[in-house]
């Protein structure tokens, strides 16, 4: 039997399709249920919400020590490295001045002393996050609790999210972070070079029924709760105090609120 090139290619093509089809069918049949009866669920202890939110009461964080304790609580459990240079810097929560935190809200004749006040900054876990919109791999996404998560396994390090975030909340691992972690927490992973990271509202603690580490360390200056639950502590404070968010004009709807004065 002799076949010409055209026929050979035809047969080869069809068989290739056949193989592909067969494996697709197999995958479909086996699907996600390849371990019979196994399932995944949420722990009954887990704290859940529709949209986690935070209120930072700036009046209650007065000394350098207050804010240092909060930052340290976060950075130590999350294995955040300390590079000691602004170029490689990685931070999840940090302090800055009013002028830098709310660059469009100030004026030259502000209340005395406000310039010295430390403002805590972290990811706003926006309800309408631009970083999630631009991510080409869904590595950054909104969890069903309203947390803006980063899946370090999937991030390709394109840094589009860093260009999109109007709050400078994201850091990139410009180099291997491990040598710069003072003391590693064996319960939490580190990151590797080439991925973006930021605050995760302590998703790993919420799963165990614990509040975020910063809230715990803040001595009541930071309050955490469900924005969509009218009875939550967060909503109670928002109802009874004048609060502001960073850059509200951008329509990102930040979930971190600040009580400034009064």
């Amino acid at each position, binding site marked *: 039997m002799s076949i010409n090139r055209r026929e050979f290619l035809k047969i080869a093509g069809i068989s290739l399709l056949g193989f592909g089809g067969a494996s697709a069918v197999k995958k479909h049949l086996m699907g996600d249920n390849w371990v019979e009866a196994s399932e995944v669920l949420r722990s009954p202890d887990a704290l859940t919400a529709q949209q986690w939110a935070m209120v930072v009461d700036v009046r209650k964080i007065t000394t350098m020590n207050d804010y240092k304790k909060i930052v340290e609580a976060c950075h130590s459990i999350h294995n955040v490295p300390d590079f000691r240079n*602004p*170029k*490689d*810097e*990685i931070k999840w929560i940090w302090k*800055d001045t009013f*002028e*830098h*935190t709310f*660059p*469009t809200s100030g004026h030259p004749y502000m209340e005395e002393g406000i310039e010295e006040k430390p403002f805590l900054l972290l990811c706003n876990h926006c309800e309408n996050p*631009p970083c999630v*919109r*631009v*991510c*080409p*791999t*869904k*590595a950054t996404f909104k969890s069903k609790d309203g947390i803006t998560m980063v899946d370090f396994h*999937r*991030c*390709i*390090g*394109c*840094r*589009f999210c*860093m*260009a*999109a*975030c*109007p*709050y*400078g909340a994201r*850091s*990139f*691992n*410009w*180099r*291997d972070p491990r040598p710069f972690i003072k003391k590693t927490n064996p319960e939490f992973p580190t990151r590797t*070079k*080439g*991925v*973006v990271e930021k605050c995760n509202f302590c998703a790993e603690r919420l799963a165990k029924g614990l509040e975020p580490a910063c809230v715990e360390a803040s001595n009541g200056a930071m309050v955490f709760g469900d924005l969509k639950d009218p009875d939550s502590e967060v909503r109670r404070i928002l109802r009874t105090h004048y609060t502001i968010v960073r*850059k509200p004009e*951008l*329509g*990102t709807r930040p979930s971190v609120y600040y009580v400034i004065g009064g």
Partner: protein
Amino acid sequence: MLEKALTGSRRYWLWICVLLALSGIGFIAYLRQFTYGLGITGMSRDVTWGLYIGQFTFLVGVAASGVMLVLPYYLHNYKKFGKITILGEFMAVAAVTMCVLFIFVDMGQPMRIMNVMLHPTPNSIMFWDSVVLLGYLMLNIIIGWTVLGAERKEVPPPSWVKPLIYLSIAWAPSIHTVTAFLYAGLPGRHFWLTAIMAARFLASAFASGPALLILLCFIIRRTTRFDPGKEAIQTLGKIVTYFMITNVFFFGLEVFTAFYSQIPGHMHSFEYLYAGLEEHRVLVPLMWTSAVLAIVAVILLINPATRKNEITLGLASVAVFLSLWIDKGFGLVIGGFVPNPFETVTEYWPTLPETLITIGVWAAGFLILTVLYKVAISVKEELA
């Protein structure tokens, strides 16, 4: 046809060797970046994109501008471009390849780049950018190769290419529009958040690409027996003229909106780029070089005598190309990141490894361009 790239003069091989050497150096520098991480570049937490993405943006424009040769010939039957459309198509192939390489070297986790295809995300402009770029690359390779093959056999090109050619004409502006959307849809980056970003991109692309084509035509005429044609070059000159004027006009629109409105966020990036913010003025000399080159180019191009004189036209083309390379390959990207979201300034300047990698990618692109042009021109020399 590829075998035609395997025979050539000593000068041809010398040029190939230079390009290979430069790509090799770039590759070695890339290996260092691969092991150390992107911290080897001048980029930082505040300026997260630099030279790589700048080159990518500029080269998408160069790639799109191939249509400036294809469109007049196929839609308006402008015969003078008939024998050089291939130069536009092959330039596009080389430019898109460079774009892909620049994106690749900019990735923090290059081994995971297939995630873009494995987890397709239609709401991400970057996903669409990769789709349109790869599509445009395929279109130009197929069209260029088929039409050239037919020309070599002295038969008309097969009828199925025509629809592809029309598609590629519509496709060309799309690649640069989508690239502009990477920038123009980000809240909080005032410098980029402008509705005429895509229009500005296209104007600068259709000036810088044809300017490069004019220069390539001059080189081809000097080094080979193929003459792209005086009139074709003059028409390209007019195309560069109109689009360069449009580009300068669009830039003026941006400046007007920023400074007449007096909104600080809209003015800051311009102030940083052209005057410096406080002691931060690293980019000022570069941006003024770009501005002066643009003015010189426009004067040389508008004046019919200097546009028709091939020496001054050549100078004008160099000026256009350099001016827009600085403006788009550097200023546009860095300007968007300065000042940062806290209204403070972190400056950026590329490092040596970063520069070597950039040169390496350009060399690889010119290697592809040289080989493709060698094939195309050998075919044309045979027929002549």
